[in-house]
């Protein structure tokens, strides 16, 4: 039995049929050809499949596609607008913040969510905010710097980016205590 699901993906209305056991990741990739989100572990530990679900970053491998009924989804394919790269994408390129590139879409989606919540994060806030995304190539140095650089771009500081509908606009985040 397949279920009919209606969603909004990257601003457009999208309908699909899926089995309840299919993850959102699977449907995005295999049914909708949105292969930008990647499968790295399929159990929520690497963040390569990160997408925005109703304004919040989630591991799409840990969401059933049927749960997405009525949801607003954004994927890496929706980050660049009208032929222009988002400042984060530009800073990732200029700062060589990717090597193999498999984790990059997940990092971009998570970093964009981070900057929308906290437009001027400290280095530690960036590191804490992106701890759910694994990268094995870069040692993270250039990723953290690219996010810092993106936060300094005029576009990133414009209201358009920091106040999208459905997103929280709190600017403070206490660092978690963890030994």
């Amino acid at each position, binding site marked *: *039995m397949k*279920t009919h699901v209606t969603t909004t993906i990257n601003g457009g209305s999208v309908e699909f049929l899926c*089995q*309840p*056991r299919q*993850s959102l990741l699977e449907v995005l990739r295999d049914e909708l050809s949105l292969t930008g989100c990647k499968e790295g572990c*399929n*159990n*929520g*530990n690497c*963040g390569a499949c*990160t997408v925005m*679900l109703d304004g*919040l*970053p*989630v*591991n799409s*491998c*840990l*969401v*059933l596609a*049927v*749960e997405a*009924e009525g949801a607003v989804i954004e994927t890496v394919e929706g980050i660049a607008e009208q032929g222009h790269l988002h400042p984060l994408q530009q800073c990732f390129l200029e700062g060589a913040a990717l090597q193999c590139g498999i984790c990059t879409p997940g990092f971009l989606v*998570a970093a964009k*969510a*981070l900057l929308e919540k906290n437009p001027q994060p400290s280095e530690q806030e960036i590191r*804490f*905010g992106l*701890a*759910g*995304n694994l990268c094995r190539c870069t040692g993270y140095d250039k990723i953290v710097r690219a996010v810092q650089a993106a936060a300094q771009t005029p576009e990133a500081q414009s209201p358009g980016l920091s106040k999208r509908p459905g997103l*929280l606009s*709190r600017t403070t985040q*206490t660092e*978690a*205590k*963890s*030994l």
Partner: protein
Amino acid sequence: MIEFEYAAPTQLDDAIKQLTAAGDGARVLAGGTDIIVQLREGLRSADLVIDVKKIPELTQLEFCGEQGLHLGASVSCRRIYDDENIAAAYPGLADAVRIIGGWQIQSRASVGGNLCNSSPAADAIPPLITYSAQAHIAGPTGRHVVPVEEFCTGPGRNVLQQGELLVALTLPPQPSGSGSAYQRFIPRNEMDIAVAGAAVWVQLDKRGERIERARIALSAVAPTPVFAAEASEWLSGQPASEEVFAKAGELAKRVATPIDDMRGTAEYRTHLVGVLTKRTLATACERART
């Protein structure tokens, strides 16, 4: 993953009917961060997965100073720490929900789910125990309330009977002069399962010098998260000092019955109980003063 059916009831009664009808084959889905992995890996099976996030009572998050906190069972970790008032009133809980997985997990994972998954290493359960939180359960025979302290009965097991559903958790209001904290030990700084964890709640006297009441609870050192009764009771009337915190840590170790596994030896975990109890006590007392 094996095939299953999916239902997303919007009424609590419907959910309970579906749960009851499906019997053993029913699984409840809130944030899905445990159950989807378990179904995929064949650790649990399901004929029917019931998504409870569309039931208003389960998504309710209400807080007021006099009443305390009403925490719907499917409320995400993220919603808890995003509410500054809640995070300020229940800092021990806020500590825990900020470190359950990464941000992507926290967008979905719920405290109720953490409780129902009943892992010995659950991060959110020890703080709930220290707040004397109550679990509100609905089932085919009606509703009842169980202290969180008595909810888990073993690794992955709890008091929920067939057809029953956790609806909400309630946490009592926090008097002035109280403070709380949770810390876990993990080898990395994020994305890990607790090797050991300690939650502490304290009520200090008006001058902030003496502990009037304290509650300590531990994770990952017993088949379920545990309340450290002896250490908690001993703290009543003690000065809030480093020596006292260390002694309480020693007493807390007595309820730790950990196992040796890949995350640490029993000896190491027991030792960590002392360290973590001492450290969280210091943090909780500091918070109680501000």
